[in-house]
């Protein structure tokens, strides 16, 4: 428990750092207390919601990744590798380009669920159970297809819309307001409660489908419910920040390493907290690494996450899992 508290404190520290970092740090600090002027404005209107939205997005993505990884008992099963986040992102870009005025969380959830259904249907075998790695590979293929469609769509869009779509597909936290924060936190808390209600089946499924059946769990139905919850969690994050690559993949294993929780609930909490920390720090890096130049946060998580995936693959091979 103390380790969870330390991790939580570390992430809060990262959030504070992200809130105040910059040449004008002291000025911001005074502005926070005076409550007026450009410093207070920066904190309240620009960085405050940005950091809070980043925390929420990171937490739902981390939670989503952890759920998938536990469900399929494989560290490579993550909504970003399996094409769900890119499906959600493509749906948003398609909605923007068609000029549909639908709420983004709905569009994103529809895209994510559609991609998940596609992956599930396409990797299904009549005669044998689907190995998780087949799901990952088919998901990768769905991701390739959606990104090809995105490229094609983008070449047909007017300049302004194409630039906006490009930013969405990269993943950005620019100009996120308190309404975005409320949205991702509200949906995130709702879905977290839904996940919490499924802890017993999740713990049983982790032991393997046979043991789960022995415990009276209907594996197929329980798995579908958990997977839908996880896809919706990922979609909630995508609706605010776009399909940030690799956050969902990295959060759970890093969190488990930092906290060493045993229970499913403990590991999920660690993954959510770690995800929040990753996004906030990546956003800070994207904002502050190059002086005078601000990059979208998706670029930073891509730069951080890809080496992690390569390291993960190397380790998996050492252990003979791949």
């Amino acid at each position, binding site marked *: 428990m103390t380790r969870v508290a330390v991790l939580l404190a570390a992430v809060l520290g990262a959030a504070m750092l992200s809130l105040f970092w910059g040449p004008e740090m002291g000025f911001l600090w005074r502005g926070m207390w005076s409550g007026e002027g450009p410093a207070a404005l920066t904190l309240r209107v620009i960085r405050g919601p940005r950091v809070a939205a980043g925390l929420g997005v990171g937490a739902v993505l981390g939670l989503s990744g952890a759920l998938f990884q536990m469900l399929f008992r494989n560290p*490579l099963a993550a909504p970003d590798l399996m094409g769900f986040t890119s499906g959600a992102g493509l749906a948003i870009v398609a909605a923007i380009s068609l000029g549909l005025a639908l709420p983004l969380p709905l569009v994103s959830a529809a895209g994510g669920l559609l991609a998940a259904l596609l992956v599930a249907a396409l990797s299904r075998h009549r005669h044998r159970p689907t190995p998780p790695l087949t799901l990952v590979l*088919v998901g990768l293929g769905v991701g390739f297809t959606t990104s090809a469609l995105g490229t094609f769509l983008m070449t047909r869009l007017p300049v302004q819309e194409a630039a906006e779509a490009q930013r969405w597909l990269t993943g950005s936290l620019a100009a996120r307001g308190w309404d975005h924060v409320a949205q991702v936190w509200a949906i995130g808390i709702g879905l977290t409660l839904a996940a919490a209600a499924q802890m017993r089946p999740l713990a049983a499924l982790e032991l393997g489908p046979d043991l789960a059946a022995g415990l009276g769990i209907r594996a197929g139905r329980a798995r579908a419910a958990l997977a839908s919850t996880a896809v919706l969690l990922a979609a909630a994050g995508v609706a605010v920040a776009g399909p940030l*690559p690799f956050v969902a993949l990295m959060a759970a294993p890093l969190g488990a390493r930092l906290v060493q929780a045993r229970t499913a609930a403990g590991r999920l909490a660690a993954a959510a907290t770690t995800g929040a920390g990753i996004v906030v720090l990546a956003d800070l890096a994207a904002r502050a690494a*190059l002086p005078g130049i601000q990059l979208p946060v998706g670029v*930073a998580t891509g730069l951080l996450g*890809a*080496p992690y995936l390569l390291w993960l693959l190397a380790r998996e091979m050492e252990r003979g899992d791949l």
Partner: protein
Amino acid sequence: MRTLPLLALVAAAAALSLGVGVRPLSPGNVWQALTAFDATDADHVTLLALRLPRLAAGLVAGAALGIAGTMMQALTRNPLADPGLLGVNAGAACAIVAGGLMLGLRDEGAMAALAFPGAALASVAVFALGGGLRGDAGPVRLTLAGAALNALLLSVVSAILLIRQETLDVFRFWVAGSLTQAAERPLAGMALVVAAAGGLALAVAPAVEALSLGAALARGLGVRPGRVQAAALAVVALATGAAVTVAGPIAFLGLMVPPLARRLAGHALRAELLVSAAMGAAILLLADTAGRVLIAPAEVRAGVMTALIGGPVFILIARRIRPGAMA
């Protein structure tokens, strides 16, 4: 081997590539263009300066990618291996955009010179990371290593592009290649490179097949695994580099062609290489021709066309393999 239908396919693709486009050409025009070329006649120019170079580039790049894909899949025993998917696109693009920015290069020739080592380096890197050098690259591992390398390199590329607006147009070509600039490419030189790569591939094919039985067995047959791997990688690097220089990065072709070729050629690697070269050329030409008329007068780049077809093909192949069985 069914040689005739294969040749007919390539001939049909070539005929379509020469005959279909925005500007209709009559057989009389074609004859005139060949016998009495007039540089100010738009029909003649279309045939000889646009469609013929595109045909040549399609043959060179398509054959190269067919050979590279087949060799990669044979070497790694991985049906998901494709020089594009395993980081070549991103490697070439990254080398060009980063090099172009740092060295201030603008002209296409210098960019191609960067694309070549960039692509080759990236494919060797992903091969090493994916465990290919040790001969135990499982399909999942190699594919994911490719995806990771792609993501990494593309993040670098998009960071640069977001800072430098004007590089965007030039770069577009290096994300998904096309045959539109065929006339300005070193076609003859690259054709020679591809021929050399093909010759080397045919020479080394029996040893690669022996290697697929396992390193120990191969040694027993008098094969030196290290040398064979180096030769096969040289084939991949040469053929891919030539294809990128001619047509920019074109993904998925090396993935799609080998399984089709195996159906025609059986499981003899030499025959499979030849069939792959022919089919790669035919498919790339068809993709290019379709992209030419789909949204005319604008064009869909051949690289985008192959990606649109290739994603579903990837899924189809991924469905079939059993990751457990490969470990």
